[in-house]
């Protein structure tokens, strides 16, 4: 009997243990290797790492699959300066037979910027509401404000008609939204508010940490926004504030990109970071290949570091851009561009050929250098994107990308004072650049007059292939006119271009091309959001 009672007791015990043990807690999920958004938006460490993540999102634009879209923008696609052979060429050529709203580049930038905006919305709205030390909070949130302003500024200039939103997204708020076109003045109001907040939060802090936003970026953007709104006084004030108080300076043109590789650049306001050997060093990118010809495929040529290494031959400077430089006196002419390629393989047997080691590649040298190939294999490289450290034959690159460089501040200051009719000051700022870039022996080292065209030429010489040209032309209302006049490549070293597509931008461009279309995927998803005028509905 005792044994039986004992048995009963065991059964009852098992029953209770099994039925009433806490299941709910057992089923609560916790990811052992990932942080939660709870931690992210409510603690100083979380907020800081979220802000850090913003840079990573922006850098996703340069990943292997996206580098064509990124290179198109950075390589001044669709302006008066570039010859775009293969980095999303239809968009650069304003091709009319393609459906623009469906192009990947149109949605890729849109999506990337809005992704950043949503994350900044979350960081700002949760971060401002969190009880943490005010100083700490400001040091974290100023970059979020700046990122939001930077992203909206990019969107409003590129697409004109956009959706404005500063609320974070949650699963509860995905339905019942209305998507209306924001008034541009409201967008700019938000941008200015965010920039002013960022500037306020920076206070007197001018520290520059490589690869991060700083007060210089905040004021540069504030000055640029002011130019767009024709508020030249603010543009002047903000840009001269950077010049007078900031830690930035011009460097010798041949050193700018090499110094960056040594992590000691003084020209960089914001330099997107890559690092092969560090965690967080980002994805492999292919930007150098985009701007380098495939010369290594030529019999007698090999890929070397001093010729840019492996190439894809996608975007090149057009003859107009090259013609802007004083080839003898402008140090930038050779420091930033490689004009000629030579047969550089000493092990190659040239004995039976009409060209020899050390000769420059010439049209008709061999069967590869004929027709369009001459435009392809012997083009001019932009050295601004070269990875000086990588193994020349590898396609994997990890060099940094200058997003904002100090000369832009000088050019903005110059333009602002020109618009304010103070040509003396205007010339003083633009000549700071020329003093550094052009040999003192040159007769025209310093400019003596200034107007919009002179300014645009200096913009081209200094900031070509740094992603600013399209915006500058649009702001000055000269995009269509200039593309019609200089776009693409009509001839190269006197050889007429055999491929009419290479200069078709001149005839294709339409007035409505001054803004990109709203991505079709976004219109489909938002329902009722209007397409920009001129583009297929």
């Amino acid at each position, binding site marked *: 009997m005792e044994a*039986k009672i004992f*048995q*009963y007791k065991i*059964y009852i015990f*098992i029953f209770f243990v*099994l*039925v009433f043990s806490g*299941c709910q807690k*057992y*089923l609560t*999920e916790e*990811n*052992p*290797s*990932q*942080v*939660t*958004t709870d931690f*992210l938006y409510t603690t100083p460490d979380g907020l800081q*790492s*979220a*802000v*850090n*993540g*913003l840079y*990573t*999102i922006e850098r996703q634009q340069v990943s292997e699959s996206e580098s064509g879209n990124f290179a198109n923008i950075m390589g001044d696609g669709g302006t008066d300066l570039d010859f775009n052979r293969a980095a999303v060429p239809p968009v650069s050529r304003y091709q009319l037979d393609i459906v623009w709203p469906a192009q990947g580049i149109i*949605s890729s930038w*849109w*999506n990337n910027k*809005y*992704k950043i*905006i*949503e*994350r900044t919305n979350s960081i700002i709205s949760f971060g401002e509401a969190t009880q943490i030390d005010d100083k700490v909070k400001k040091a974290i949130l100023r970059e979020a404000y700046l990122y939001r302003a930077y992203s909206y500024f990019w969107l409003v200039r590129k697409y004109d008609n956009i959706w404005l*939103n500063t609320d974070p*997204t949650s*699963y509860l708020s*995905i339905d019942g*939204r209305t*998507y209306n076109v924001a008034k541009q003045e409201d967008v700019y109001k938000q941008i200015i508010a965010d920039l002013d907040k960022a500037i306020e939060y920076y206070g007197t802090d001018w520290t520059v940490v*490589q*690869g*991060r936003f700083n007060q210089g970026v905040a004021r540069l953007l504030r000055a640029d926004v002011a130019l767009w709104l024709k508020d030249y006084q603010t543009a002047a004030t903000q840009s001269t504030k950077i010049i007078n108080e900031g830690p930035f300076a011009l460097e010798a043109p041949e050193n700018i990109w090499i110094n960056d590789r040594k*992590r000691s650049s003084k020209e960089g306001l914001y330099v997107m*970071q*890559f*690092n092969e*050997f*560090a*965690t*967080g*060093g*980002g994805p492999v990118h292919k930007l150098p290949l985009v701007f380098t010809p495939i010369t290594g495929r030529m019999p007698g040529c090999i890929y070397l570091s001093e010729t840019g290494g492996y190439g894809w031959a996608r975007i090149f400077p057009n003859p107009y851009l090259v013609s802007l430089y004083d080839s003898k006196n402008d140090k930038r002419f050779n420091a930033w561009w490689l004009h000629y390629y030579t047969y550089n393989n000493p092990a190659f047997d040239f004995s039976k050929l009409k060209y020899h080691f050390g000769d420059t590649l010439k049209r008709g040298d061999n069967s590869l250098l004929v027709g369009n190939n001459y435009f392809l294999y012997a083009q001019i490289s932009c050295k601004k994107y070269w990875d000086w450290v990588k*193994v020349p034959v590898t*396609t*994997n690159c990890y060099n940094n990308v200058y997003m904002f460089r100090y000369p832009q501040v000088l050019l903005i200051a110059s333009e602002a004072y020109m618009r304010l009719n103070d040509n003396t000051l205007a010339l003083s700022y633009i000549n700071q650049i020329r003093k550094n870039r052009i040999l003192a022996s040159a007769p025209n080292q310093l400019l003596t007059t200034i107007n919009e065209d002179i300014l645009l030429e200096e913009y081209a010489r200094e900031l070509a292939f740094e992603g600013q040209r399209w915006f500058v032309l649009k702001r000055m209302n000269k995009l269509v006119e200039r593309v019609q006049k200089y776009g693409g490549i009509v001839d190269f070293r006197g050889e007429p271009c055999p491929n009419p597509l290479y200069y078709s931008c001149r005839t294709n461009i339409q007035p409505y091309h001054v803004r990109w279309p709203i991505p079709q*995927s976004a219109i489909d*998803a938002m329902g*009722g959001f209007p397409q920009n005028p001129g583009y297929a509905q």
Partner: protein
Amino acid sequence: MKKYLYASFIFNRTFRKLLLTMKFTMLLVFLTVVQVYGSVYSQNTRLNLSVENKSMRDVFKLIEKESDFRFFFNDEFTELNKNLNLDISDKKIDDILAMILDNSEVTYRILENNVIVITPLSNPLPQPVTIKGKITDAATGEPLVGVNIVVEGTLTGTNSGINGEYSISVPGPESVLVFTFIGMSSQRIAVGSQRTIDVSLKSDLAQLEEVVVVGYGTQRRSDISGSVTTVKTKDLISQPTSDLQGMLKGKVVGLYVTLGDARPGGSSNVLLRGIRSLKGSNAPLYVVDGVALSSINEINIDDVESISVLKDASAQGIYGARGSNGVILITTKRGSNTGNKVDVSYNGYYSIQNVNPNFKLFSAEEFVQLRRDAYRIDLGNAANNWNAPYPDESQMFTPLEMERIASKSYVNWEDYAFKKDVPLMKHDVSISGGNEKTKYSASLGYYYQDGLRYSSDMAKYSGKVTLDQVISKTFKTGLSIYYTTYKQNVETNSWTSFITFYPVCKIYDDNNELVLYPIGDGKSVNPLYYQTTRENSNNIERLILNGYLEITPSFLPGLKYKFNASLNNRSLENNNFRSFEDPSSLTQGYASINFSKNKEYLIENIMTYDNTINNNHKLNVTLMQGIEPRYTYSTTATALQLGNDFFGINSLGTALKSEIARSLSDRKMVSFMGRVNYSLKEKYIFNFTVRADGSSVFGTNNKWGYFPSAAAAWNLHKEPFAKEISWIDEAKIRISYGQIGNQAIGSYGSLATAADAFYVTGDAPIVGYLPGNSLPNPNLKWETTTTANAGIDFSVLGRRLSGSVEYYKTNTIDLLVDRKLPTVLGYASIPFNLGEIQNTGIEAVLTGFIVSNSDFNWSMTVNYSKNRNKLVKGVLRDPVSGKYIDDVSNNWFINKPVNVDYDYKFIGIWQIGDDIASSPQPKARPGDVKVADISGPDGIPDGVISADDRVIIDMNPKWMGSLSTSISYKSFELSADLYTVQGVIRNNPFLSDSNYGGRLDNVNGIKRDYWTPENPSTTCFRPSQVLHSEYRGTLNYQDASYVRLRNATLSYTLPSKWSEKVGLSRIRVYIAGDNLWTDTKYLSYSPEEEADAYPETKNYTLGINIKF
């Protein structure tokens, strides 16, 4: 005579199909006789007994409790109520009984198995006679172990033991012996003067009494109300493969098994009754010995005892949130009671494999001609002069090529892509045995499959040990250990790189060294070259530990509690290596090792209660509670630049640059299940099941899911009116309805986690996290499938013909999809429950025993199934009307099947002289693909080919069927298995895609009847180097229906007198052929795979089964 049975039995039975037979035997026992109990106690056991004023009946009970003796008596004996006073210590049973029965009117006899029979004195015992004999299977001559032998009208009985031999004591010559055995017709034999009675039993065609594994227990087939199909493993074993899923093809009606990965160690895909999930898995749940496994690839088929497939909600319902894609229950072999005899058997086969192509490549000459045709046609096309002569050879070929064409230095790449007569072998040794207390089994298996492709093969070793031990009347325990390990070497080069390779070239140079670039273009690498520079292998180990404790408390007969615990551990090491010589690695070599580990635990408490009241009400209640935590760990180390490559993958440590990645996840589940089975008079059967599953992967607000189901069945043949219809043997009508889930959510899918977003400033890494592109959804829940099922099972004409027909309709709602979000919200999508899919279908199985006698048997089974699938509600809605609309980007169309393509319709080839200019394709040229102008937006052909002319192409099979037949004559048996799938469309990229030679230009491919001016083909476009036909992709849609002789086996079982001479009890040898004949239009190595997949093989096998 009403018999009162005091004894509780452990049944002295042994047979291969232990689990299947258990219920049947229990039934027999209750209805008829007592079973004797093989003793480990002896009559010399000494007992102590002290009672005061207790009835004789109680004293017997007490003795039963203290010893292993069991009493049998007629309950009507008044003597039993006589009160006794005893104080006995240390006495033998004979002495004790003598004391108890002193002065009574009864006496006793102790039978050999510790059973004590109490009989009246007035009926003196006749002289017992001992009968001996051997029982064999009439069909095979194989000894039958575990046959039930009873003396008719008495309680005396035994089982056949070693070699089918038995020995039984009968009261006298007038006794009659009854021999019964599951699956066999029983026999009655009068003893008479015989002292040796050998019996051979014939198989009984009725299988309705078969015991079926249904999950958390077994049921008699006649008691089942849901849809369950069982597969006999003997039908599967002769196939030479390690792919257990693939073996099920054609064996289970309603199961659509397709080739998944034909490489050694690969497995097939299984789909039950149509696609139910858009994003989630459609694979069934595999449960091996009660343990849910994510893959059954490593299970050795030789260890499998039975396979049950649960097909409707009432059967699947016990697996709740995981059962909706069907449940495949696999029961492995365990030891059985062989009366301490050790059963040893060996099964082995050796097979050779070859490819079985249904196409030809262009030969080198044909390919050269193709190039000439392409050049000429291109010129003709440009000049609009189709009769132009061929251009000069020098314009079409380089000097090197012309030289090679002249000297015929050609390569037939297929010769180099595959090995021939590739071996495959399997060896399995198993031992098992036991007695009524202890049962054990152990097996060792070895499988080796060489690959058809170079550097691919697989070697697998497995071992299994089981032990079951009765501790006492109340407690029983057991354990099993299953271990398997295999190494799979994966081929290093893609097959496409072989067949598309230019055949005019040389692979080896004059020194017989491999040429790196056979064409000499500096980029097309000789595919053979990778065999020397690459290595890719998987090392897999799996360990399954399982233990249980069973308690059968005495206070409530029929109640049983089982505690079940198991661990399932799978570890994988994937190695990937490229040496310095590898042409594709610009960096110095490459090595990557991935270690991943899955650990799955299961702890279950199962309570069952069985009771039969008045023989009319049969009740079975099962309650289960369990938890299942699962953990996955993965670590990857990648070396991008190696210091040296001397040690292959083991040079990883010399890396100059490396990357390490780590990921881990876990998921937990808590479950409760209840099942009630009630049968009234064995005619009306009702089944109710409910399962509650709490899963960690479900959203915070939806942790628990509840899945109820109900079923009813009517055994028509037990009704009086049916009994009068002589030709009906069995008939059952079943209906069921219920809900089950699909927890197709990955871990943390509902959790708001942030992704790594590390950044760097200069050389300093900085920590960054941000949410990824998918917005977390804490409301995420399982997909729910509601199934209605109706079926009829029947057996007629003296059980000559049997079968079943079923109809089902399933609706799956709350489909897990990634709902696209406007990207302005900062997220691309959100995991969401949306939409509905419906599947309806019928299934039929018919088995006939055409000839059945002792020498000659011929049986045939036909099965047929048909499923219709449609998307009822989709993901996208019209913003205005709110109606569900087609999602073209995902190929999801409302009211259409899920697995469809959307493309133009091929109707021919444009010919010279056609009025192309005024056709809907005005820009077409002769030799281009002609597509149908189906409709403009208004449904009327509009004279223009536009996106509206695309049609929905249903890729799903219309129906499937199989026919298996088996003919046996004496010791020979011939079986064959035909299988067909009809109405399937597959997309074959080899017919148009440039990467597969489909475009007819610069790379080789599948030979086709292409268009030339002189050969106005209507099936294939013109070859070209520059201008390729538009819409040529429409040629890809090929009918992949097929009929196949999947297997034919001829076996011979040696007469036992021969095998016994060499000391073996049974020898069977067989030859078999697999995939012997296929009829299909699909151009590939298999109608279920594209030609670039690892090819399916055609096999010839020689095998042997030996029993010691």
